[in-house]
């Protein structure tokens, strides 16, 4: 007996359904024991241990598309909600737990095949359980000359990540994982298999080359959505570049930042510095908020740009830096870097250039030890240091059990970054966070090539401390609401905040959500597919939630 039945389903009906699921995938691959279901909880949930924590009633793990179809048909028969996960490693954004408690998790981890990698037309086709590691290893084993683009945690799924608007670290268009997908196979809420784009043409060989096919594109509905279960998906790949070059630009004044951003935008959009530009401030960094100078700066609230310019002058370090990265033939990357220096020197008096490095690719094993691997499309797990015990971290003695990210979408402009930094500060001040961690020296993240993401202060969770988690939820919800009100919504969020986030997209009385709901009802009449994902509830359940 599961702890949590799907609402409105009797134990007897559920048992019948489970029996049918077992018939479809084999008894070993249907999980209903408390121990097994515990592994489907969201390890990083800030709802952990609360009454409204998201819990599955069972988990089913198909190995083929046909088994996925069978599972979906059974769910329709019994009107039992399903929730599909790929590798289940979407930690901080929901992990392996459903968005509607009592759902049966469809765990696609066993479907982890790399179906095709073409290094002449530069694409891959994979299954949802395939991880970045799996795809990377497949390419490496065969000596194919293409790069993948991976986010920080290497164990995630290229499909799951792209579907949740995940982002990465290599060249411009590839960092946007949804943007670089091409072609899908989907099991629809009625159990039919559908292929999108050119995949619908039984004879075409361009499923992973051309996204559109003919007629309306439906792919977008499956991103942060609940219109079907994606069982195959293609991605465009970056051909392995000959070499890589980096150099760091420093600008003296705090107010030089706007010009710096404008020039870096140009270098990126013109395909000169196609690698990730990494911004930082020499005035920030760990421990800065405890220094007397900083306290003096912030004593009377958020400082003006003039005060910040004066502060930078007094500290005698360049206020901002941008690490530029270039991929390509040696002559070309050297010429691009020379151009970048010339352009920025001419525009920003006092700009200096440091940390110049050139490397032919691929990196040697020795170079791999000292470089930021994701910038080279090499999956790894380094990011977990933020939740592990960092050598001098504040949580060294009692590390968090996880964290909940908040990254806001901000225009690529200096003035908008200033406004977003202050917005984080205002939220923390209003909530009386002590100490306030938002500083005028935080930098945007450049995972996406046309927009910045700005982090708000980390939200850590403790599986053993329900009260702590409750405070974290309040803080997180405040970030969602107040940052959106300032025009800076989160680009993705955990299930507990999805209704709240979607509500902020309120143009014309949430016309977009209503349109999505009409579409949803049309293709999922029984409302069985991932109810509530990103605020989208089927008719039967609408109004049940926030």
């Amino acid at each position, binding site marked *: 007996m599961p702890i949590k039945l799907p609402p409105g389903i009797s134990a007897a009906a559920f048992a019948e359904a489970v029996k049918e699921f077992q018939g479809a995938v084999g008894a070993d*691959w249907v*999980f209903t024991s408390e*121990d*097994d279901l*515990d*592994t*489907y*909880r969201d*390890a*990083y949930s800030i709802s952990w241990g609360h009454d409204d924590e998201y819990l599955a009633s069972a*988990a089913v*793990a198909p190995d083929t598309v046909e088994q996925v179809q069978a599972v979906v048909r059974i769910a329709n028969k019994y009107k039992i909600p399903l929730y599909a996960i790929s*590798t*289940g*490693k979407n*930690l901080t954004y929901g*992990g*392996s737990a459903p968005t509607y408690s009592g759902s049966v998790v469809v*765990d696609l*981890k*066993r479907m982890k095949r790399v179906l095709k990698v073409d290094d002449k037309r530069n694409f891959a086709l994979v299954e949802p*359980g395939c991880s970045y*590691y799996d795809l990377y290893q497949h390419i490496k084993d065969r000596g194919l000359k293409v790069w993948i683009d991976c986010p920080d945690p*290497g*164990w995630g799924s290229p499909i799951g990540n792209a579907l949740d608007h995940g982002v990465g670290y290599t060249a411009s268009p590839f960092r946007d994982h949804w943007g670089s997908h091409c072609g899908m196979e989907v099991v629809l809420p009625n159990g039919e298999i559908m292929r999108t784009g050119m995949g619908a043409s039984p004879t075409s060989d361009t499923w992973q080359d051309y996204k559109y096919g003919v007629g309306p594109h439906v792919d977008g509905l499956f991103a942060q959505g609940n219109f079907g279960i994606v069982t195959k998906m293609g991605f465009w790949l970056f051909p392995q570049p000959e070499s890589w070059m980096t150099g760091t630009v420093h600008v003296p004044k705090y107010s030089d930042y706007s010009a710096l951003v404008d020039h870096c935008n140009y270098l990126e959009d013109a395909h000169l510095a196609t690698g990730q530009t990494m911004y930082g401030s020499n005035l920030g960094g760990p421990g800065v908020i405890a220094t007397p100078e900083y306290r003096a700066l912030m004593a009377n609230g958020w400082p003006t740009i003039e005060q910040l310019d004066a502060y930078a002058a007094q500290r005698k370090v360049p206020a901002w830096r941008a690490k530029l990265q270039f991929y390509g033939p040696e002559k070309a990357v050297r010429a691009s870097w020379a151009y970048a220096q010339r352009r920025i020197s001419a525009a920003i008096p006092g700009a200096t250039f440091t940390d110049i490095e050139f490397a032919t690719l691929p*990196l040697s*094993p020795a*170079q*791999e*030890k*000292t*470089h930021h*691997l994701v910038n080279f499309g*090499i999956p*790894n*797990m*380094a*990011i*977990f*240091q933020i*939740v*592990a*015990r*960092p*050598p001098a971290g504040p949580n*060294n003695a009692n*590390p*968090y*059990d*996880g*964290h909940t990210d908040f990254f806001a979408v901000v225009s690529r402009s200096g003035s908008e970054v200033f406004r977003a930094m202050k917005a984080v500060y205002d939220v923390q001040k209003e909530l009386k966070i002590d100490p306030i961690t938002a500083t005028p020296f935080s930098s945007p993240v450049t995972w996406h090539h046309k927009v910045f993401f700005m982090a708000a202060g980390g939200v850590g969770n403790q*599986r*053993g401390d329900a009260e702590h988690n409750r405070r974290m939820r309040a803080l997180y919800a405040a970030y969602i609401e107040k940052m959106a009100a300032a025009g800076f919504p989160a680009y993705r969020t955990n299930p507990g905040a999805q209704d709240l986030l979607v509500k902020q997209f309120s143009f014309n009385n949430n016309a977009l959500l209503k349109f999505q709901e009409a579409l949803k009802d049309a293709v999922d009449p029984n409302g069985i597919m991932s109810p509530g994902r990103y605020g989208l509830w089927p008719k039967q359940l609408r109004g049940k939630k926030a």
Partner: protein
Amino acid sequence: MKALIAVLGAVISLAGTAAPVFAADAGQLALGKEKFDYWCDTCHAPDPREAGRYLPGTASLNAKYNGSRPGALVDRTDLLPPYVELVIRKGMEGMPFFRKTEISDAEMKAIAAYLSRNTRQ
């Protein structure tokens, strides 16, 4: 859960030296190593920057034990299978738990046997 794991950990650290606690056959150890390398090694390999991959698991255990035990799991001589299995299925701090679709029970036992191959009575 953390408390439970801590207790189990303490029990295990009390276990002494001498002969290996579990007799595992070579095939199981090989499977265990293979699955450890696939699933665990990305965070728990010996050197925190082994092959350039910053290894948060090894770094975290180094910080925790301050040299009193090795940070790398493969160098440990005090791990007992039930503890290894518990951490795999229940997680530990920032390390989330693993599902059977990732690491099956048989694979988990093989990993546990591999990591406790040097543990003495």
